[in-house]
């Protein structure tokens, strides 16, 4: 009898330790909680209507794709404050090419390459000139937004995609009448990045680079290259999110992506990513990004003034940081975290 009680005790401890070690579960519960609150308290439960779910999953995905790659970059120990500006700059490249008569697929490819290149420049400047990425990308944020404003004159431009139904459907269509294609892209990108971060050796190099750069270097890991690659991936993913957003809204706006840089960092932090690098999980960032997206979407249905969003973001970011600090200490005692 003693043995069985001991065993169940052990089992219980294992379950609770698993909960703590699996950081992403904590964030998942925050998401569920917010979902429940919005579902119950939105007037007429309109939050959970099919239409809004589609809006949430499609518009949310544009941002969450950015958050996922920003989370990866933060694990490598760097920031990117220029994601919003890269987004608008590459959007401008796309719409200019498209309007100049370049094939839509080619326009998309060139846009992704341009996004990658802008990210690559951020990375090269950061590692070669040894400037903190906070500064490099702060500069890039102002620069690319400015360039886009200059070139576009700050004007909106319409995007007509009726002649390209295939591309339109592939990027912003609806699968099975429910699931927006954007969300599937988000899931797909998350799966790929998760596999790389937690199962591929390159992911291990990203973690070690962010956690202890000197140790990684001493073991022959080219930390500069790792960081440049992460910046480049951020650029590509952001360009893709930008195109996605234009496809949905059928407009180019010079204000697109404004404020996304801090929101993306907030999503990563809510998801348990350390600002110092080396710590975080992609599942955590996944739910963290959805938490930020659901707050934005849900508050609209609560009929609360938009400005409340910022207030609530603030409260949620600081409180999750406090909670995750507490769990970090517990996690250290219990061992490494469970990634997936």
């Amino acid at each position, binding site marked *: 009898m003693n043995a069985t009680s001991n065993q169940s005790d052990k089992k219980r401890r294992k379950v609770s330790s698993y909960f703590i070690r699996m950081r992403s579960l904590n964030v998942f519960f925050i998401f569920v909680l917010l979902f429940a609150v919005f579902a119950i308290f939105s007037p007429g439960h309109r939050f959970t209507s099919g239409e809004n779910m589609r809006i949430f999953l499609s518009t949310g995905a544009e941002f969450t794709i950015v958050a996922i790659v920003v989370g990866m970059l933060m694990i490598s120990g760097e920031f990117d404050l220029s994601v919003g500006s890269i987004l608008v700059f590459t959007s401008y490249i796309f719409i200019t090419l498209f309007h100049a008569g370049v094939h839509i697929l080619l326009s998309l490819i060139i846009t992704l390459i341009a996004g990658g290149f802008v990210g690559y420049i951020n990375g090269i400047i950061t590692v070669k000139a040894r400037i903190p990425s906070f500064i490099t990308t702060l500069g890039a944020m102002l620069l690319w937004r400015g360039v886009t404003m200059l070139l576009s004159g700050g004007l909106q431009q319409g995007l007509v995609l009726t002649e390209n139904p295939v591309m339109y459907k592939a990027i912003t269509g609806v699968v099975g009448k429910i699931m927006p294609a954007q969300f599937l892209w988000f899931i797909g990108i998350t799966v790929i990045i998760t596999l790389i971060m937690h199962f591929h050796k390159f992911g*291990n190099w990203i*973690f070690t680079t962010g*956690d*202890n750069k000197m140790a990684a270097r*001493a073991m*022959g890991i080219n930390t500069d290259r790792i960081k440049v690659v992460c910046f480049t991936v951020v650029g590509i993913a952001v360009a893709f999110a930008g195109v996605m957003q234009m496809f949905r809204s059928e407009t180019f706006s010079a204000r697109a992506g404004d404020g996304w840089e801090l929101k993306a960092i907030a999503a990563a932090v809510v998801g348990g990513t350390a600002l110092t690098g080396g*710590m975080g999980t992609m599942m955590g960032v996944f739910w963290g990004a959805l938490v930020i997206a659901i707050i934005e979407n849900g508050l609209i249905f609560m009929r609360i003034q938009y400005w409340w969003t910022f207030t609530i973001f603030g409260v949620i970011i600081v409180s999750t940081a406090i909670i995750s600090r507490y769990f970090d200490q517990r996690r250290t005692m219990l061992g*490494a975290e469970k990634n997936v």
Partner: protein
Amino acid sequence: MSDKQADAKEGTSAEKVPLVQVPLVQVPLVRMVDIDKWFGKVNALQGINFTVNHGEIVGLVGDNGAGKSTLIKILSGFYPADRGEIYFEGKKVNISNPKLAKKLGIETVYQEQALAPHISIARNVFMGREPTRFMGFMDRGMMDRESMGAITKLGLRIKDPEAMVEALSGGQRQGVAIARVLYFKAKLVVLDEPTIALSVKESQQVLDFMQQLKAEGISVIFITHNIFHAFQVAERFFILARGEMLTDVRKEDTTIDHLIDLIVSGRREIKS
């Protein structure tokens, strides 16, 4: 002036000392000959001749700024020497970067730079050398098994290969770093101040690890300024002060008091 000094030393140490130290039948694992290093106007190393034999623990002792780290950084490829030659297993080598040093089998364990604290033990052991199954995806099962194997071999008891390094004690961390060089079959391990921040008990543990490495046939350079620690495990002492060698002496030919006296007074041992 300094050239003269170096020349003078060449006459005494380069020719005589190695002959006395090393039996001619055995080629030393590492022989650094007449190493000079300048940092601007500071002569950090002055004509140093340093050898390490197979399966030997050498205590590289000296106060802060004596040139211990500089000597080791030259050996491990972080700095080039301004003058001098390095022989590894009898062959002249040019160790121009840390990767080449690793390739030769020279592994350096720095206390702060060895491990990533928020990453699991298994991942730390295989950092940069992960075994993969396909397309670069890691063989995590093997990483867990092999890392635990290496750690157990060292006489260290850790249960969970998934535990974060941050949860380990200082001695255990040194153990993980040393298990890594053991696993990857280093020929020479340089331990840079491995006991500096450790408790008495943990220091003892690290000294035991060194004996274990020796038992595996691995040579150890033990850098320390704690002569008491060095005296417990090292078979030979190489003492530096201000970039000059004070003495290079076997344990049986000296006493701890004599070594302390040398370090404190900073005077050169005149070889008889």
